[in-house]
């Protein structure tokens, strides 16, 4: 019924539409705390320490699972590796959470949504890029629909290796984030 190559196959011209400008990276606005402007310098240091300790011990991540790493993230919240011990409670709305765990593969269709969520979060905010997919595309590095790493669109604080990383390594990531908060206590308002 079909004569081979009677009709030449039309050459394949991919057209990517308006995707390039949807994936612009976000530049971080410089936060400025009220008490930094009001209190004299000598009283700012203890205030920084107290606030950093309180910020460190109550990180509220957002319940936002992308792929297989989300299952390990849930595992970290459950009874065997309880993240609640560190005061880490998952919150559903970006307004109330101050840490965004990118747990899974970031595709180019999902990237604008992640940018939007990151912008909606109030300011002293942190990003944990969990798993190889979020860090640099993981096992899917050769497919062009997958964003090779979430740090191409939002600034990332802690990278957790593993595919999927064990709950213990996620907890280690949180501890590393807590140390980072203590180090940065002077800069972040």
């Amino acid at each position, binding site marked *: 019924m079909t004569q081979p190559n009677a009709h030449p196959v039309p050459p394949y011209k991919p057209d990517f539409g308006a995707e390039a400008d949807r994936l612009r990276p976000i530049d971080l606005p410089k*936060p400025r705390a009220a008490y930094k402007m009001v209190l004299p310098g000598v009283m700012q240091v203890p205030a920084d320490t107290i606030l950093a300790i309180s*910020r460190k*011990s*109550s990180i509220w991540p957002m319940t936002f699972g992308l792929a297989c790493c989300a299952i390990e993230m849930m595992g970290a919240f459950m009874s065997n590796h*309880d993240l609640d011990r560190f*005061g880490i409670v998952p919150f559903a709305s970006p*307004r109330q959470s*101050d840490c965004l765990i990118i747990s899974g593969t970031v595709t180019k269709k999902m990237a604008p949504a992640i940018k939007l969520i990151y912008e909606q979060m109030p300011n002293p905010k942190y990003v944990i890029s969990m798993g190889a997919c979020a860090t640099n595309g993981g096992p899917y590095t050769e497919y062009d629909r997958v964003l090779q790493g979430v740090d191409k669109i939002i600034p990332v604080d802690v990278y957790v290796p593993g595919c999927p990383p064990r709950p213990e390594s996620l907890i280690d990531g949180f501890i590393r984030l807590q140390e980072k908060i203590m180090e940065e206590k002077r800069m972040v308002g």
Partner: protein
Amino acid sequence: MSFGDHIPWLWAWVDVVVRVVIVALVMTLIVMYLTYGERKFLARLQMRLGPMRTGPWGLLQAIADTFKLLTKEDLRPAQADRWVFEIAPYATFVPVLMVLVTLPFARDWGVRNLSLGMFYVFAALGLNIVGILMAGLGSGNKYALLGGLRAAAQMISYEIPLVISLISVAMIAQSLDLNVITELQHRRPFVVLQPLGFVIFFTAMLSELHRAPFDIPVAESEIVGGFTVEYSGIRWSMFQLTEYASMWAWSVFGSVVFLGGWEWPWGGDVGWGYQLFLTFLKSFLWIASVLWIRGTVPRLRIDQLMSFCWKVLLPLSLVQLLMNGFIIVYGWPQELLFATSAVGAAGLIGFIVMRGLHRPKTPSLVGTYKQPQGSSA
């Protein structure tokens, strides 16, 4: 005899201010440790440890949360209209603080004892719907709109059985003054006389707090945060403060009206220390049961919730009111009060338990397996 009359008028003002400050401090302390207590209690329900790392056994967790929320960036969404959005948290919080004025913690330990104490409590707690609606409609977010409307529908419709069940208690005590009601429960708490009233009050109070089975305005899994979805930092913590403060205020009010407050087991003749202990013990037991229910019971759908209120709670509370009227007017013995009310309570709880008893099962576990060709289409 209210306890403010013998002081000249200047001192009365100072006295009130001091009492209000004490009550406010006690409330803040209790609310902070309620957030911590709830997380610990729910963690225990779910076989895990609650916050442990901030302070010994996580005791400083509440303080850490508060400080962190204080220093969050103050976000206000562009499409939210400014003043309604900013005043909403305070509009929900003020009624709760107003209620604390009349609650008697011990014989003379309330801020001011009003002769219309119970009526004042209804009025004040009816106000926080206004704040929730302002939050829902003001924050310009579809989820918040849905949450706000759901909250309004639920809280208004559940207030009626709540008020009627409290009126039936007031009929027995023949007065609306909370102190008088508590003193009358010297020998028997009113829960013995009015078990049905207690059950209706507890259910309606749960929906006033929008917790446990009635938490559709703040439904986590459906409309992300209900009316609190757009709030962040200090404003959101005001909503949390309101929620826990009203939970504590309701539990103290409930224990005063139904469980005898500071009076019931010999509270009258022992000193005020024992009375304070009684009030706090009963309110914390009440809160523990509310948290327990929150941990286990799933959420009702909005139409089930409405039909449960209008078709079950309201008629029962009206029947309760009628029976009280007959018994008190004709002067029948008090035991009859207990009998009729117990029948009502048994009917309501039995109706729910019976439906839960016959567990749905898949029929196929019993049957033997048949090959697909032979199986019915």
